[in-house]
């Protein structure tokens, strides 16, 4: 059940109505409803993996209790590592086993040894990286005494499986979400309207921006050798907006949906393409994952309070892990390494926390230097995305070679140029709206200041644009992770 499907358009009002009109007297009953709805939502993908989700939830729930109850440090450790081991084990089996087996065989072959590893023919359970990270953060927080263990299974299960965030995040923290689940929630008109607005904006990003960009990016990435350098740059640009529209669109729909139920989820994107350096970009892109790695890996490794060479090591570890989290492919690792390399000058010159606030907070346009920094950061990001999108390393090199060839000065040889121009126009319009709304958590949030008539006109225009200019439907990219 995709967020942009008619099935979800039926599912959401039904759950909403039951939540606020039938079970509104009792927040525990509301939680049970949310849990059952979330399991139904997940079962629509593949009901068999529902058992894996329930097992993973039960394991972390029980581990949390055993860790808290244990009087001896040894027992705490045993339960902690058991939970971590099984969680990572699931990820290892479903996501990384084939990668390691194939690469080990290739390595052995270098030494003249033949190995024929048994490869698993299993489908990756949707959302496994997301719900595993929910569970991991909870168990680590209980072990580190940052939070109290959760004794109510239903409440804990809603924290892990709440349907808006179940399959593609944001990756929540128990400290943020569990208290909201445990308390009584009241309907708030402004909050719910803001949720609907965010859903609408998310749908526009996904259906109009991402899906149209995907059609163009697919043409250029699937037939790389047939296109000249300028066309390949456009292809990279299309993918840059595809992945942003796709993932941030999904996050907007998730956050907006959660708001309809009176729940606030972690913000996942904060206008990353207006970043002035790569450090700022990573504070604004997939924030819930970046902060997860920061809190659970980077800081425990010493963070920035260790010697410089250790900081460099830690930075590389974080970026490589982040790349590897996306999938068992060398292209994702290369993407992580490249971002770490981008980060190095900032780290070495202690400039990585220079840009904390949004660009040009008090003026309409950025200054010349700021505009230049934004453009440079954007281009570097775009180049890194080539690795992310490429089928393998060979393809990535071929694509980059094409991008930096002399044919960059030719007219782009894109088959469907009128469509490319239309998509570019949408990208321009979208960037403009995002720029104007950059002071808010999402671009349309500022609409509250406008008159009702104008708000109404904007809603209808957006709905019309989505209806007419929808690209051919594409799976959300982050579902595969």
């Amino acid at each position, binding site marked *: 059940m995709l967020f942009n499907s*008619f*099935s979800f358009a039926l599912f959401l009002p039904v759950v909403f109505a039951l939540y*606020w009109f039938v079970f509104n007297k009792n927040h525990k009953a509301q939680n049970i409803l949310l849990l059952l709805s979330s399991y139904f939502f997940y079962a629509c993908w593949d009901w068999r993996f529902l058992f894996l989700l329930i097992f993973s939830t039960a394991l972390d729930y029980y581990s949390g209790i055993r860790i808290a109850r244990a009087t001896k440090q040894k027992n705490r450790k045993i339960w902690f590592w058991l939970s971590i081991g099984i969680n990572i084990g699931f990820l290892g089996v479903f996501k990384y086993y084939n990668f390691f087996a194939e690469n080990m065989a290739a390595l052995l072959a270098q030494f003249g040894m033949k190995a024929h590893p048994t490869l698993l023919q299993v489908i990756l359970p949707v959302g496994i990286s997301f719900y595993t990270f929910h569970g991991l953060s909870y168990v680590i927080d209980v072990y580190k005494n940052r939070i109290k263990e959760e004794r109510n299974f239903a409440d804990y299960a809603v924290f892990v499986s709440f349907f808006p965030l179940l399959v593609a995040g944001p990756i929540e923290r128990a400290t943020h979400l569990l208290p909201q689940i445990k308390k009584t929630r009241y309907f708030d*008109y402004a909050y719910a*309207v803001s949720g609907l607005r965010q859903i609408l904006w998310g749908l526009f990003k996904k*259906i109009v921006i991402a899906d149209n960009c995907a059609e163009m990016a697919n043409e250029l990435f699937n037939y790389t050798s047939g296109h000249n350098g300028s066309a390949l740059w456009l292809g990279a640009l299309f993918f840059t907006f595809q992945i942003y529209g796709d993932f941030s669109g999904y996050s907007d729909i998730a956050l907006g949906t959660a708001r309809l139920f009176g729940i606030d989820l972690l913000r996942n994107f904060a206008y990353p393409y207006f970043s002035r350096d790569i450090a700022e970009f990573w504070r604004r892109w997939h924030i819930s994952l970046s902060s997860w790695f920061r809190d659970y890996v980077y800081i425990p490794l010493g963070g920035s309070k260790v010697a410089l060479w250790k900081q460099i090591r830690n930075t590389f570890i974080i970026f490589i892990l982040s790349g590897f989290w996306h999938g068992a492919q060398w292209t994702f690792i290369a993407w992580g390494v490249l971002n770490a390399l981008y980060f190095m000058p900032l780290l070495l010159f202690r400039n990585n926390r220079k840009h904390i606030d949004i660009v040009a907070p008090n003026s309409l346009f950025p200054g010349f230097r700021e505009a230049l920094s934004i453009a440079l950061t954007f281009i570097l990001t775009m180049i890194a995305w080539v690795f992310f999108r490429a089928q393998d390393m060979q393809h990535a090199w071929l694509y980059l070679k094409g991008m930096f060839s002399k044919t960059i000065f030719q007219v782009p040889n894109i088959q469907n140029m009128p469509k490319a121009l239309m998509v570019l126009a949408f990208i321009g319009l979208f960037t403009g709206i995002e720029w104007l709304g950059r002071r808010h958590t999402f671009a349309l949030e500022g609409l509250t200041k406008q008159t009702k008539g104008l708000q*109404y006109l904007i809603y209808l225009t957006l709905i019309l644009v989505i*209806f*007419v200019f*929808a690209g051919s439907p594409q799976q959300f990219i982050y579902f595969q992770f």
Partner: protein
Amino acid sequence: MKRFLKHTLWVLLPLIVLAYPLDRWLSARLKQSHTLANGEYLVWNDIYDRQINSELAIYGSSRAWRHFDPQILEDSLGMKAYNLGMDGYGFYLQYMRHLEYLKYNPKPKYIILSLDLFTFEMPKGLYNSGQFIPYMRSSAYMKQYLQPLQGFSVYDYYVPLLRYFGKKTELKEALKIGFKGEQQPALRTRGFAGNPESFNEDFQNAAKMIEKYTVLIDSPCVQLLHRFLSDCKKEDIQVIMVYSPQYTAIKQFLVGKEALVALYQKFAATYQIPFLDYSEDVLCFDQSNFYNTSHMNTKGATLFSQKLAHFLKRNTLLSKNLPVKP
């Protein structure tokens, strides 16, 4: 909460109120298109408007509507002919069109079934899906045969306007016709459209990318052909299976054509119907008869239609013992 529901309803109200009339308006305009979807609307309209009163019907894929000129067959055989060739689809959806055709029109005496490499291939998705949009909500057969294929969701068949979602080409065409009327000449005449183009270079480009094409024989399509031929026998409709010419150079890429032809011959023997195989005919060796490897241009189609008509006439179409080879 009341305020929230009221305001949400106000935003959605125009969509809810307008969905049905807008759907009707768009569908009515789109049906008038003479060129979109390779002229398929013209054929569907003739089917649903009960306009096909022909003794001879031609079935098949794009090779049918590009190769078999009903006018030539009509002039030569002295019976009304209509070409129901369906762009881009094998027998699975040709059978659906056959059912719709018989539901609304008098049955023909004869059916020429154009066969090709793709006859038994199940569609992977919906190619040229726009052709179904104006009719799919009211057609039970379309619902039955299109639903297993990816392209439309189950809601598209029931919820007004939903199937127009993101269909820019169809929306643009409907609006254009709505405001200016249809100004293009009809692409097809009684289902047929010749293509005057000479051989294009797509073949060379495709040859670089595709090393081999393996003919697919999907059992649901084979079963449907059995059902179709049995039904025709019961209804006393004479079927003539024809494998129309394909450019000879395509042979180097093909794997499994012999097995396919053998299967066609088996069908012909089982149901005692003629199978005319023109896939090795002399017309296949002249590039000037084609605009690509599997489609004849106007010149080729004229020559082929004349040749076929002459053969059918000489051997008396009504005979059930026509020779297998022309």
